[in-house]
């Protein structure tokens, strides 16, 4: 029999991983369609949490209402974000621009700029401290599974992540809109020639991805009972890492890697020390990339 101590640590590592996964799903979806890193995804997560907070303090609706309202809000947020930070850069359709690094990284910077404005704005509006939440909304009631203790939030977040992943896989593999998303991601110009409304597809993807990001924000906010303007930063980076480790285009891959990342951090705390956990997680990433230069589930480079 394994020492329950290790079981408990595994469970904690996994629950950490599920949180990263929740964030990574939306992040990967958005990266997929435009092939640019959306630096503002962390802020969508944060704003989602703050929207939930405002809703709770103002109307105190039931939990599910909060969740769905935040999802809807997230979708709207994604729409706005795409319009402001990404769409303007698609006005250049000549080849030099399409293949230019400068143009690609400028989109990255526009999302960074938006994220700065949003985060600083939140700090001015709410202060940078953690916000207090009504305790009955928190999803952290302990559940004992034999020697292992988890909390309600672990179950909820796991369920939500599973539903998101399943739903998204179905959407991408089985539906027309999913096929369009993949087509735009593979070749945006080609997509125009086959009659895909690329703008709408991109906006839909942003709305979907941001919806998931905002949902993740409020869930994790309620899980830890901690909502503050900088909360999106760490999960944002971890989601980015998980996505790349998984091979960019594969959402299940990103999820698996997010779990691995969470686990490796948990194990690092167990066997080494909490402050070295990052070292282990990033070391793990580097080793993975040395052996799988295209991520664990990535496609190879195109042929010459």
């Amino acid at each position: 029999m394994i020492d329950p101590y290790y079981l408990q640590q595994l469970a904690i590592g996994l629950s950490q991983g599920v949180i990263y996964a929740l964030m990574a799903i939306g992040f990967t979806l958005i990266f997929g369609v435009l092939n640019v890193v959306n630096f503002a995804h962390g802020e969508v997560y944060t704003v989602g949490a703050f929207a939930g907070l405002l809703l709770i303090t103002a109307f105190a609706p039931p939990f599910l209402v909060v969740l769905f309202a935040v999802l809807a809000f997230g979708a709207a947020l994604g729409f706005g974000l795409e319009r402001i930070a990404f769409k303007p850069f698609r006005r250049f359709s000549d080849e030099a621009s399409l293949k230019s690094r400068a143009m690609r990284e400028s989109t990255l910077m526009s999302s960074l700029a938006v994220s700065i404005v949003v985060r600083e704005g939140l700090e001015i509006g709410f202060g940078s401290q953690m916000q207090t939440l009504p305790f009955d909304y928190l999803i952290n009631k302990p559940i004992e599974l034999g020697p292992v203790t988890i909390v309600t939030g672990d179950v909820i977040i796991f369920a939500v992540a599973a539903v998101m992943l399943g739903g998204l896989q179905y959407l991408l593999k089985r539906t027309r809109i999913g096929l369009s998303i993949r087509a735009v991601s593979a070749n945006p110009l080609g997509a125009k020639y086959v009659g895909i409304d690329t703008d709408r597809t991109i906006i839909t993807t942003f709305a979907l991805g941001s919806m998931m990001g905002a949902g993740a924000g409020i869930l994790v906010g309620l899980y830890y009972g901690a909502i503050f303007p900088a909360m999106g930063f760490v999960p944002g980076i971890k989601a980015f890492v998980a996505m790349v480790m998984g091979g960019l285009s594969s959402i299940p891959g990103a999820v698996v890697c997010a779990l691995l990342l969470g686990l490796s951090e948990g194990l690092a705390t167990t066997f080494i020390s909490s402050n070295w956990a990052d070292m282990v997680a990033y070391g793990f990433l580097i080793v993975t990339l040395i052996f799988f230069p295209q991520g664990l589930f990535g496609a190879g480079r195109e042929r010459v």
Partner: protein
Amino acid sequence: MSLLEIENVTRRFGGLVAVDGVTTRVEAGELVGLIGPNGAGKTTLFNLISGFTPLSAGAVRFKGEPIQGLKPHRIAARGMSRTFQNLRVFPNMSVFDNVSVGAVGAMGQSAFAAVFGRRARADAISARTWEALERVGLGGVAEDLAANLSYGKRKYLEIARALAMKPELLILDEPAAGLNDSETADLARFIRSLNGEGLSIMLVEHDMNLVMGICSRVVVLASGRKIADAEPAAVRADPAVLEAYLGVDE
């Protein structure tokens, strides 16, 4: 000793045998054509020779030395340069800079030399670049961004870049694609003049006028196998080639 010897070269992709035990060679000064139906394995064979795809089996020797397993840039440094079927110019660089990369690749330029080096080296690279540019007639657009060139000019740009390396063997993958008949005729003259200066050339082409008109020998692939290797006239008459590739004679 031949310039390039290809021996029993095979390449498999999963279950598909893209190149299947091909043996042939290119003599110094020769102009060899490589033809075959779409998907016959021509580009794959070029990738095998130039080091982009590892061999499943067989051997490739260049100037008598085995080159399989070498990185593309090592092979290029030995004097073999190539163009690509899907044009691959450097879009956000000027035409001049594009071509200079070939010269730099061949002549080498270290970080140290770039900072403290003498002017002579840069001048030599510059001269070589101009020479290649003038050779293909792109001198006038040297400062334009490559992305703004039309398709045809890009083809010449690729050739210029390869020429700037001063190769001994030039490998051209469908150089005439996208050119009209009179442009193709110009290209044919151009390739022949290159060959006349002693450059060995191997080219893939679907334009039979070009291939039959300038090649001294034609190799035919079909489904990865070599089905003919002879003078143009003989290939043109080969029933197997007619069947697999040419269809009814034009």
